[in-house]
């Protein structure tokens, strides 16, 4: 097993799948000769050639639109959008075509497309380079949304995303790309795309998060443990389809839930989880569900970005609130 950081794990997964499935194609801005702005595709063009690792113009509409046409012919394109803020010109094709090919043809065509994009703040980059647009995609029928939170999950989930017959939006937390390393087997084993992962068992409160925020969420759980509050930590990983079973089962035991996400608050994906808890888990709850999110503002430049993102302190405070009156 190799010790890999998250971006290396992404690279290994792409390499594995391209080596084992000739229908996998990588395309995007600077993904070939340059190996990608974050080096996620480094070495792929050398190994698999410029026919399968295509440097495109800076034309996001065409990158995704072309990839959809390739997917309709049975290829498995993995398109890279360099930063999540650049994904909006491609929204037309993701929204209007990728998620609908199957429905339009009633199953005679599917769209085995993966759109990879870095996401999230914490790298001192201005607005378009730091956004968390996952809720936009989760709103869209026919599209899956996946956000890994560790190298091993990035590896297994990306393999699953490429093998999945439907379009997957695969958002990679930029802040985690090189934050830590982990043993990754690089054995081609995929992870399931329809389950949450319980990262830490606990009895007093359920912390639900995804992506880079699991870093702060797990630190909060650790801090709470020092005070004797045992938090369960769930990594949602796949936002759509959402595995509410795992979350509801946990909340049935803990009676409390705090949802943590880096995206802005209004209409964020935390609201969807909270609504599900209200519909299906209300009688398990001992306290109102809390959301810890970014503020409803554009991601600020570096001096303020840590005020923008949820902190360990805010998460701990939200947990304390659920414990009040217990």
């Amino acid at each position, binding site marked *: 097993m190799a010790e890999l950081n998250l971006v290396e794990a992404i690279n290994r997964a792409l390499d594995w799948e391209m080596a084992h499935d000739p229908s996998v194609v990588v395309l995007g801005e600077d993904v070939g000769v340059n190996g990608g702005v974050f080096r996620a595709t480094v070495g792929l063009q050398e190994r698999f050639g410029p026919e399968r690792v295509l440097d495109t113009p800076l034309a996001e509409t065409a990158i995704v*639109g072309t990839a959809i046409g390739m997917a309709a012919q049975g290829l498995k394109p993995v398109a890279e959008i360099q930063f999540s803020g650049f994904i909006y010109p491609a929204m037309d094709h993701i929204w*209007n075509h990728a998620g609908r090919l199957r429905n339009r043809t009633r199953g005679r065509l599917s769209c085995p497309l993966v759109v990879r994009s870095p996401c999230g703040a914490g790298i001192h980059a201005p607005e378009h380079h730091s956004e968390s647009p996952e809720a936009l995609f989760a709103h869209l029928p026919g599209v899956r949304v996946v956000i890994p939170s560790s190298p091993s999950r990035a590896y297994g989930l990306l393999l699953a995303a490429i093998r*999945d017959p439907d379009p997957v939006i695969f958002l990679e937390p930029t802040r985690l790309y090189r934050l830590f390393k982990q043993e990754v087997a690089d054995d081609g084993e995929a992870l399931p795309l329809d389950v949450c992962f319980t990262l830490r068992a606990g009895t007093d409160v359920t912390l639900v998060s995804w992506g880079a925020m699991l870093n702060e969420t797990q630190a909060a759980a650790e801090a709470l443990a020092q005070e004797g509050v045992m938090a369960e930590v769930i990594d949602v990983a796949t936002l759509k389809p959402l595995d509410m079973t795992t979350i509801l089962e946990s909340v049935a035991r803990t009676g409390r839930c705090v949802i943590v996400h880096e995206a802005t608050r209004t209409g964020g994906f935390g609201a969807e989880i909270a609504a599900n808890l209200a519909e299906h888990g209300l009688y398990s709850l001992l306290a109102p569900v809390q959301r810890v999110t970014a503020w409803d503002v554009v991601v600020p430049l570096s001096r303020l970005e840590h005020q923008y993102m949820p902190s360990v302190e805010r998460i701990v405070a939200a947990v304390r609130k659920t414990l009040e009156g217990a």
Partner: protein
Amino acid sequence: MNATGRKAKAGSGMSERPFTHQLLADMLRIRRMEEKCAELYGAQKIRGFLHLYIGEEACATGAMHALDADDNVVATYREHGHALLRGVPMDAIMAEMFGKAAGCSRGRGGSMHLFDVARRFYGGNAIVGGGLPLAVGLALADRMLGIRRLTACFFGEGAVAEGAFHEGMNLAALWRLPVLFLCENNLYAMGTALDRSESQTELCVKAASYKVPTLKVDGMDVLAVHEGTRRAAQQVRGEGGPFFVEFRTFRFRAHSMFDPELYRGKAEVEEWKKRGPIHSFSAQLKAAGELTEDGFLELDAEAEAEVAAAVAFAEAAPWEPVEDLLRDVTTPGAMR
């Protein structure tokens, strides 16, 4: 009567007909089908939106006859005629118009989203310009898979204002992909005249700026459309790169069924109608002694009969069961 059975019958009749008569017959099939659609829209049998191709039939007819059966075709929301001439049975088209499960998109696409995967007809598309990058991707996949065929992409002149046109045109030329771009320039993008929306009204100049070879064709003349498309397709197949053909044409009816047509005068429409593709071509054939009035009426009656049968098929076809509402969003059982 099922759709497949009648198609075979119609197909066997086609082969004995002179080519010019087949072109005329196909224009009549589109015309009569759409006239019936307009009537059924009024009767609320067809709901939603309906964009008629009446006046532009020479474009789809001439172009489709210049393509191979194996080519990919991408179309727009004004695609009833394109689907029909691609071989989608009129029964299946009419049932789709009604939203019936027997429709070519199983009743979910409607007028604007006719699809037929088996015939490599990749759909009507309500997004103007949306088909261009898709066509580029289809062609790129063919090249990667080692399949020699071209992708014909129909779009209106309104699409040239969209970024997707420019991105698609550039990629097709840059990567020398076998895409035949077929621009049906009917002079009005919905209600906006070409010179009110484009600084450069010579559309071939736009395509040529991407080093795509171009050809401008009279879109009211079915033989000219056929010959132009044939030559362009030949070049695409031979040299591999894209080609752009502009058909100058005109739609006789409104943009959609809810269009007051304040943007153009009746006189202009009447002037274009004099050059209507069906009557001008039949007059040409008659003058050459290649067609009699009886011969014309026979083709027309055949088209009317096909339309009547298609309407009967659509009327009798069952609705999609409500239980199927949630099907075909994502692939069942494919999440691991």
